[in-house]
């Protein structure tokens, strides 16, 4: 066997007890964190780690950004060809996102006839850049952005970019925050079909092999989603965690299972989640911070 004589190495003997101790320590940490739920005893540790590692991630991302254009030639993700042009244009486009939001709304209104209250119109954005991406090996889809509580970013705020809904803030430290992408298996977003206003639940657990696809489950079982139909956020109370009317994606296919009464559809999101760069965090109007706030009227504060 490959284990030849290593088992007889005298230095390996104390390692067994250390190994068992470490295993027990891991299980303790897992239990503490899993049992803790929303008030996990690990949260202070996360916050400390975020305050130390976050700024280093942001600095590293700034340092490698000039090289990232070279990297994008090597990247094997979708939307590769448009990437360089997209990166350059995104910043300026984002500034106009709020200006075009009423236009997008009008377009959506045509599509879905959604009526919005005056309260829904107009929100402010804090622009931020993605500085770190959680590895796919962790099976969760999260990114770090370089805006935190000092810029007015708090947990449960909507994050979007030029293309559509990106996710929501789940944790914020002083200078960075963690964003849960809508393709994460744990993510759940309330959505509304464009053509018939039917509401449903969009989750990150994809039904297909494509990891970036979303899964839509309609509340009304009798409705069959149409291919190509646009899905936008339904919106929650006071826009927490998602504001209404942000485009999410398009219906790619409908999965009909005779044994199940529910209808499921596969949604292709508008956002390319492996090539995220500039994003906007929806903040309440009148937010003050150390960062530029793009106001609903297109002005910059």
């Amino acid at each position, binding site marked *: 066997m*490959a*284990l030849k*004589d*290593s088992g007889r*190495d005298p230095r*390996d003997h104390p*390692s067994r007890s*250390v*190994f068992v101790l*470490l295993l027990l*320590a*891991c*299980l*303790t*940490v*897992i239990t*503490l964190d*899993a049992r803790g739920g929303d008030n*996990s005893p*690990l949260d202070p540790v*996360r916050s400390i*780690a*975020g305050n130390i*590692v976050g700024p280093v*991630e942001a600095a*590293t*991302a700034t340092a*490698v950004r000039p090289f*990232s254009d070279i*990297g*994008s030639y090597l*990247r*094997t*993700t979708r939307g590769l060809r448009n990437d360089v042009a997209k990166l350059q244009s995104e910043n300026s486009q984002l500034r106009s996102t709020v200006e075009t939001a009423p236009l997008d709304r009008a377009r959506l209104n045509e599509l879905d006839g959604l009526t919005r209250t005056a309260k829904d119109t107009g929100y402010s954005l804090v622009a931020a850049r993605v500085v*770190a*991406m959680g*590895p*796919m*090996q*962790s*099976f*969760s*889809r*999260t*990114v*770090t952005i370089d805006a935190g509580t000092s810029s007015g970013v708090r947990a449960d705020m909507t994050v979007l970019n030029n293309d559509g809904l990106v996710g929501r803030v*789940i*944790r914020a430290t002083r200078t*960075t925050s*963690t964003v849960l992408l809508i393709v*994460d*298996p*744990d993510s759940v977003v309330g959505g509304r079909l464009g053509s018939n206003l039917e509401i449903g639940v969009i989750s990150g*657990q*994809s039904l297909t*092999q494509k*990891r*970036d696809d979303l899964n839509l489950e309609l509340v009304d079982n009798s409705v069959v989603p149409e291919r190509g139909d646009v899905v936008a956020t339904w919106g929650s109370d006071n826009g927490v965690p998602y504001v209404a009317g942000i485009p999410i994606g398009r219906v790619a296919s409908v999965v009909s299972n005779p044994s199940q009464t529910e209808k499921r559809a596969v949604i292709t999101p508008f956002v390319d*989640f*492996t090539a995220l760069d500039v994003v906007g965090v929806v903040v309440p109007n009148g937010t003050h911070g150390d960062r530029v706030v793009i106001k609903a009227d297109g002005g910059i504060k």
Partner: protein
Amino acid sequence: MTAIRAFFLAALVMAAVILQVAVFRYVSIDGVVPNLALLVVVVAAFARGPQFAALLGFGAGLLLDVAPPADHIAGRWALALVIVGYLAGRVRQDARSSTLVALMTVAACSFVGTSIYAITGLVLQDDALPAGQMLQVIGTSVLWDVVITPLALPLLMVVFLRLRPPQVAA
């Protein structure tokens, strides 16, 4: 001296974690990046044995678990890397004798480590993907780790041998 060594080890682990999330995302294959923290633990096992590697694995795993943008139940990567460090340390005599065995050990460790992480996710119902997608991710990550090994292994080996306390003979 011990404090300085510990500081350098902590810096090395932190650098691996940060490179993994902030730099390698630009060359990710559908989001999968080389697992540098795992590689550091495996090379530590080759250089210093199972006890040291399991300890380092615990630290590196815990950092992966709590450093942003991680959002899974903490301790899952720690568990995976403790086991990986211990296993890699047990076969270190063979791994040091030939490059091919070292590469195969890295591949096996990458597979075992990511699989343990995936299984804990299934058990705890935390971030579980369908099995087919999980296998796809695990396969890609094994490939990445093997590709990056010829570059990282000699470098890390030198670092770990330098950081060895003088009283322990090889």
